């Protein structure tokens, strides 16, 4: 049976009059790396705290491994490891002591992986937390979570403060964990990281899911840019269905054309370009960046975002 690891339905949380989550839906399947994207204040950390049973949902359903995280927090936490967004550790403990104290509250610690990770992240376990830099404190929390024998990793903006080299090491570690069958919920606003790791993503904004699906799915809902140089003027392209931003001009005896097209009409457009004898052709797939900016930017106009993007998400 394939029961989702994380499942929320119409999840709502209000703090007084402030609505932090507004019927958020989220489903994470076993074994996948799930990207959880959104601008600051979108409700990512609130969702994660509800999943951990630290705060209680105001409304809606939430299940972690099929159980209620508020009631079963202690036993559920035996199957997961968590890296909070703001890593807060005890200044008086050494890094090694911190790892052990954190490890004691995990389901189990793989000691071999622990020492391996300390090496890979170049961590000095004899140093006190108060003498660590911000990035090194982050590393302690990461090593503790990655060394845990867990079925689920919940990582809230895990690479803030890491240098690019360490970010590489982190991505490699997450891939290895996934190969071991571990599910990962990766909250982030670093697109490259999510793009490199995630199988599926959700983009949330103001406590609502604005887009969700596999990266390929999401790409299909954005536009592909096409740049073609053809011998003749392509026929029936300008103003055709699905085509926009059409610019076409003669150049050195040929015709230089750029336009964008949605995924459903790409095939037909390429056919028409072919009919006009293609000289050179560049097709740029939509980046997650564009999708992200589209989701955030257009969302400023709430009506439009709710109509198109939520629709696109389904």
């Amino acid at each position, binding site marked *: 049976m394939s029961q989702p690891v994380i499942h929320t339905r119409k999840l709502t949380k209000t*703090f007084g009059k402030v609505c932090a989550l507004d019927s958020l839906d989220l489903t994470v399947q076993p074994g996948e790396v799930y990207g959880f994207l959104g601008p600051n204040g979108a409700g990512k950390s609130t969702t994660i*705290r509800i999943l*951990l049973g*630290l*705060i*209680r949902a105001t409304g809606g359903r939430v299940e972690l491994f099929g159980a209620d995280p508020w009631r079963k*927090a*202690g*036993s559920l*936490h*035996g199957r997961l*490891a*968590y890296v*909070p967004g*703001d*890593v*807060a*550790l*005890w200044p008086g*403990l*050494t890094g*090694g*002591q*911190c*790892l*052990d*104290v*954190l*490890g*004691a*509250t*995990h*389901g189990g610690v793989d000691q071999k992986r622990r020492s391996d990770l300390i090496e890979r992240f170049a961590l*000095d*376990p*004899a*140093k*006190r937390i*108060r*003498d660590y830099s911000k990035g090194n404190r982050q590393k302690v*929390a990461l090593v503790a979570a990655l060394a845990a024998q867990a079925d689920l990793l919940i990582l809230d903006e895990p690479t803030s403060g890491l240098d690019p080299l360490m970010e590489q090491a982190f991505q490699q570690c997450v891939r290895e964990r996934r190969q071991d069958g571990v599910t990962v919920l990766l909250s982030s606003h670093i697109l490259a990281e999510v793009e490199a790791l995630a199988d599926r993503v959700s983009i949330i904004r103001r406590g609502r899911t604005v887009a969700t699906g596999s990266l390929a799915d999401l790409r299909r809902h954005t536009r592909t840019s096409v740049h073609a140089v053809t011998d003749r003027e392509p026929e029936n392209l300008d103003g055709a269905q699905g085509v926009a931003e059409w610019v076409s001009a003669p150049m050195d005896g040929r015709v230089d054309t750029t336009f964008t097209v949605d995924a459903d009409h790409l095939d037909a457009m390429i056919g028409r370009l072919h009919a006009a004898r293609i000289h050179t052709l560049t097709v740029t797939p939509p980046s997650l960046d564009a999708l992200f900016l589209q989701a955030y930017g257009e969302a400023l106009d709430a009506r439009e975002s709710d109509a198109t993007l939520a629709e696109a998400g389904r």
Partner: protein
Amino acid sequence: MSARRRDANPRPRGLGTMVGVVWRTRYRSILVWVIALGTSMVGTAVAVAGLYDTPTKIHTYAQAVTSGRALEAINGHVEGIDSLGGVIQDEFGFLAAFLLPLLGIALVAGSTRREEESGRLETVLGGRIARHEPVLAALAVACVAILATSVLFAVGLVLAGVAVSGAILYSVALGALAFAFAGLAGLLAQLVLHARGVYTWSLITLAVAYLLRGVGDTTNTPVTWLSPLGWAEKTAPFGDQRWWVLAIPAVAGLVTGGAAVWLAARRDVGSALLRGGAGPVRATRFRRRPIGFAAWLHRPATGGWLGGGILLTAMLGSLARQFLGAMAGNPALARAMGVEDGRPLDGFVAATQLYLAIIAAGYVIQAVGTLRTEEAEGRLETRLGGTLSRVRWLAAHTAVVATGLVLIVAGSSLVLALSTAWSVGDTAEFGAAVTAGLAYLPAELVLAGLALGLFGWWPRGFGFAWAGYAVATFIALLGPGLKLAQWVLDLAPTTAIGNPPLGAVDVGNLAALAVVAAALVLLGFVAFRRRDIPRA
């Protein structure tokens, strides 16, 4: 200040800018310090002037205080105590010995190493500020604050009717004391890596200074001159008026402050001479368990309060014979201590135990406050992200804090019993001194319950636990003397204990307090299990 100019070769006016930064970021705590110190000093002066309004009364006071070395060890040796100023200096002696150095330490530590540790100093030094200017500015602002405090003192003393020259010399001597410690804190801020270290080492210096002054005064040796507290005392503002002694703290402050500025200009920002060394690579099995971790977390505070309790009881206990002598020679002093029925030793132990109860209650509130800090700084979230349940976490901490409380009360009571027995030369009071301490436990637990209840139910209102503590302390210490109404006295849980061993302990009251404490703790647990973490 002149108008803004943009010269071709602008002389950097970093110091003025930096003074402005220090003032704008710190003016609240500076004002609180100056006003609180000024009013408490002036209040003491006025109260003393009201109480001792005739030369006869002053003479009686002077006789009582100088009848043994006991009070000199605590308040210092006051030259010219047979005057209003002398009485004020004696009454304020203990508080001034701690508050004025603390003024200097807090003002400087807060705007030097704390800023450097947080990284804010780096931001400032990115501007047109030279490396040595922040510490210089911190010292300058501290000097102005100290000067303002001294002026307030002097005015208050004169208004209370103290001779002008003595008032000025005394105020300046206290200001110079604060200045010496400000310089020391500035120097330490260059040497250690964390603000906590600045406080620790300055307070250790202060404790040594207090000890040296006490030893010098009781043995009548020049040891007193080794202590900054002794320098203030030796100016003898109400005796021989040795103005030249002021030069010693002035030079000490200038040398340490100058060294701080010199070092700040030459060392790397963010560096420190004394660094914490490497620590153990692994946590012990005990510390990985919730109870062991809680024990580690509360150990420094427990040790500190236990040390305070032992210091107080050892000091008072070993002076028991002198107190008895003073009380025998001065019925007024005996009455002030609540001893009227001819059992001075019981009265002495009862008064000491009340002080100890206040120390112990302060410990429990601070310890529960640590839990709130853990939550506010995000570490509670880290802690509960694993298999540890909320109830187990809170239970482990409650057990550790309760154990710490018993340790502080029993340990200090034992020291009181031993030192008193040693001082008076018999052990008749031994058992009574210990059981009196233990009898206060239910009252202390009520305050612990209040703190825990607030933490669980209304964490943002935790300040009310301290407010409750302040009210209870005020009523317990001053209520009987001020002859407050019985219902007001009953607001302090210590009132219900019955002032043992002088008064009788009502077992029913103890049980009732225990029930209240248990109910409050239960409320804290139930509410904590149900609330959001972190609670916004």
